[in-house]
């Protein structure tokens, strides 16, 4: 995973709430067995509409998505994160995220920052007044800046640290190998195993 410190790029307003992962990527695209190449699938149904924000020439090659509350609810599909990442997004902001989506994002280097509803609407208005305006995300300072307006976003310390360091979760966990083995040795015999039943 690459380290994430700061990033500057075009910000897109997604003025919808409850954007579930079925909307981010419909199930029909989940049949692939690869981890990349999902950019065409992102918001597939909505992109058929010429008025959809991503079809606006002002928002080409965007890096930052600013969405309404409850972004990424529903299905656990990590493909939603891959599709956003493949399309070019590196950071998503919303007043509230689906839990599984937020966890998945952190593991793939996609920053999810929480900002208030008021700030979200304020930034939407700024982008509408100046479509294509650049945004700067500073993970060290935890700020999102558009023009001369800077808002602080929330991200938990641990995810922030991992993004900043670009650390791989499995490698981190395997440092605790001895503890895992000790736990397994003490595991009660009534607990299930999937070996063929009696």
């Amino acid at each position, binding site marked *: 995973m690459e380290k994430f410190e700061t990033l500057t790029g075009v910000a897109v307003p997604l003025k919808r709430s409850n954007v579930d992962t079925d909307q981010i990527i*419909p199930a029909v695209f989940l049949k692939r067995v690869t981890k990349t190449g999902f950019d065409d699938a992102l918001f597939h149904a909505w992109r058929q509409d010429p008025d959809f924000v991503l079809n606006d020439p002002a928002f080409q090659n965007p890096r930052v998505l600013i969405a309404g509350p409850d972004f990424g609810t*529903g299905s656990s599909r990590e493909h939603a994160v891959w599709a956003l990442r493949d399309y070019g997004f590196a950071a998503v902001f919303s007043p509230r995220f689906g839990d599984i989506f937020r966890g998945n994002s952190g593991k793939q280097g996609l920053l999810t920052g929480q900002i208030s509803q008021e700030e979200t609407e304020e930034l939407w208005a700024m982008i509408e007044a100046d479509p294509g305006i650049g945004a700067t995300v500073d993970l060290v300072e935890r700020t999102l800046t558009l023009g001369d307006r800077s808002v602080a976003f929330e991200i938990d310390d641990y995810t922030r640290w991992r993004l900043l360091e670009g650390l791989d979760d499995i490698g981190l966990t395997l440092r605790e190998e001895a503890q895992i083995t000790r736990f397994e040795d003490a595991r009660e015999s009534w607990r299930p195993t*999937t070996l063929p039943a009696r």
Partner: protein
Amino acid sequence: MGRTLAEKVWDDHLVVKGEDGSPDLLYIDLHLIHEVTSPQAFDGLRMAGRPVRRPDLTIATEDHNTPTLNIDKPIADLTSRTQIETLRRNAEEFGIRLHSLGDKEQGIVHVVGPQLGLTMPGITVVCGDSHTSTHGAFGAMAFGIGTSEVEHVLATQTLPLKPFKTMAITVEGELKPGVTAKDIILAIIAKIGTGGGQGYVLEYRGSAIRSLSMDGRMTICNMSIEAGARAGMIAPDETTYEYLKSRPHAPQGADWDAAVAYWETLKTDDDAVFDAEVYLDAAELEPFVTWGTNPGQGVSLNDRVPDPALLDDPNERANAERALEYMDLAAGTAMKDIKVDAVFMGSCTNSRIEDLRAFASVVKGQKKADGVRVMVVPGSARVRLEAEAEGLDKVFEEFGAEWRFAGCSMCLGMNPDQLAPGERCASTSNRNFEGRQGKGGRTHLVSPLVAAATAIRGTLSAPSDVVATGSTLPPVIESVGVPAGAQSTAEGSAR
């Protein structure tokens, strides 16, 4: 201070307690795998040269993509076939037990785990599927994970996780006839919203929950994620033990006794404090149905399509307006005046034997409404066999419904079972998102009893709207899920 059920199970799986804001490392007792969210995880293992740490705590089945017709033929859709074949290769290479299409233990992963007796109280269960919350019905800590986490569990049998907050959802009282577990959970989601449970483990409690069978409890816990919660739990009791006892993987002999002794401790302590609490009166609940495009947009079946203009929150208003446009519904329309094109009876929410029995109890001796397509999809091959042994397949066929093979089917339309654009469906599944059951399809979430009555009348209907044909027994419209052992109501004091 006492601890909640969720906190007890969490504490008993701590491998490493996180410090300074880092997450806890939790041991995973059971990892369920299916074809959609696993290929990239196995790829990751291969690339890093890592083995599966505990194949003996891992089990795989094919469900999301599988056809529900002609299952003896090669899968026509090439990408679906590739995904299934990839799972088979991965299971073989990494030594994981797999129940493939055609096997009698194949089926929806959340139906298969419990029916094998692998799901039990006090364990941790994960799966790359958000409806893993289903298994919480046994008093397990069960939640959906993403593909990176699937890889993590395969490699380490653990997950780094921040503790959840706890929310008690207490449902007291007796359900009216025709009101079931599905109606309870739809009412809960309408009350707390699709984001209301975010960051929480929900614990469902109270006499109405205690009176439910395991199948009913699974329906409730299954939809915890639709309220934003990753997990939902119900404390184990006699109903749980009775269900589990004769299952193939249930502990035996001294192990059983030791397990039950432990399971008896898995109740929220009297002096435990939840971070949030919600109450519902079971007696006030009616059959419930959704009108919009998220599971929180629901009303009583006797109600009308709400008017977005009456919503205060501008976001919710815009959301409701969009939903009505997509659903092609006008505010003020009586829900019962809404005509459907299709009825889907299935999914990990409602495809167990009791769900099929409930549906059959209403449609027995009836004919489906003209022009309505009715599909009945059992949750597993074993449920299918069980239903056939009881003659339910004949009831469905005489009614005019299609009796299919097991899988996720039209819940998410990854196989050919999809709605056509503009088609409207009464569905016993869990998500009414835009396009979920097929591009442009419109979904109303309902219980099996409401699905059955709707299939007869062609409009959204309660079982009490159905006139018995006279040639057969009148429909049974008792609430589904009164357990065989009525003694379990005494467990209501376990709170």
